[in-house]
């Protein structure tokens, strides 16, 4: 084999190596593929607190309310869904089995998101405004508006008292 043919032969071998090398690159899908908002509970001093008693949370739907948290004791946080098509969602907070109620209103933009062609589509959201009744809740603060796979704290719920 002449040096020139040998060079061509080696270069073709390298081409096959490169194809193998390039095909190593792949897409890693997120381990957590649940999209949910997250809110944490605080008192006036900005200390994290737990609800003293039970908390039941429902989302209001045209076809009937859906419970997302059922009589949870000493709840200190809540993961909540946001609708794919509505602009504002209503969450009903029921404290201690109907003794007190609060309604939370969460306005958001829905963003259909291509995670990748190998990992699929997901509906992410951007929270634009929050408000509530004030039977037990004092203030709501948007901490991070983006609702996606990151599980960040999106909303701070500040109560009148530690209860």
């Amino acid at each position, binding site marked *: 084999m002449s040096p020139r043919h040998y*060079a061509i032969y080696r*270069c073709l071998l390298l081409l096959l*190596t490169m194809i193998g*090398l390039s095909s190593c690159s792949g*897409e890693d899908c997120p381990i957590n593929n649940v999209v949910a908002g997250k809110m944490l509970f605080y008192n006036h001093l900005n200390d994290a607190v737990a609800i003293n008693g039970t908390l039941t949370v429902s989302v209001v739907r045209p076809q009937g309310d*859906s419970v997302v948290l059922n009589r949870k004791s000493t709840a200190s946080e809540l993961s909540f869904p946001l*609708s*794919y098509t509505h602009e504002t969602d209503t969450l009903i907070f029921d404290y201690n089995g109907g003794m007190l109620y609060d309604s939370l209103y969460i306005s958001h933009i829905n963003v259909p998101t291509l995670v990748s062609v190998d990992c699929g589509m997901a*509906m992410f959201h951007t929270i634009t405004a929050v408000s509530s009744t004030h039977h037990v809740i004092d203030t709501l603060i948007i901490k991070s508006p983006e609702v996606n796979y990151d599980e960040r704290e999106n909303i701070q719920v500040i109560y009148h008292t530690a209860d």
Partner: protein
Amino acid sequence: MNAKTFRLFIILLISLAASPSCLRGADANKGKPLSLLHNKDKGEKLFQGIYLSADAFGYIYPIFVKDKYYSTELSATVNLKNRFFPVVEVGFGYTDMVSQLYDIGYRTQAPYYRIGMDYNMQYKNGKPNYIYLGGRVGYTSFKYNIDAPALKDPVWGDESPVQFTDIPCRAVWAEAVAGVRAEIAKNFYMGWSLRYKYPIYKGPIANGGPWYVPGLGSSTKAAFGATYTITYYLNFNKRRP
């Protein structure tokens, strides 16, 4: 650096270590005094010639892997003193695929551009074969389409359609390049390069951003790429063999 990237780096280093045997006459100057080789370089004209190259890797690669996107590119490289190689690359990237797992259709096609410079690591041997290191800056402006099954809300039960057309996007990226170019016939060369591509800017990001960017590839993070080129050399240095 994760394990996968580290493994690719090891393969790259092994490839580079093996590459001198790809070059005809790479050891021709073995044993010659270094000072003699330097004197030879001093006599070189600044402008030596122009390499006109076509890349075949963008069409070969999709045959072997599942990513169904294609690209082809042409480049012009100026040879300055057999040592510095300013280069302009113009390519065209294309994909029209549907993922089997999620039935997501993704379509785009656009030109891309790169400018940069290579440095011949073996300029002292005076032969028309090169091992080179270099860098590039790439740019593309393109539009992409996404067509996927509607997203069904698990709580409310509604469906949200997923059909987006002509989403505009621009991308800028940097590439580190390592490669070889070997003469296979008079003024004809064959060569390859490995490229480490690092996205600098992609935007505006809408609906998760593009999956495939012409010239950059399908990864959202840094990724490896490659070229396999056939080159014709316009020789403006009559003294050169």
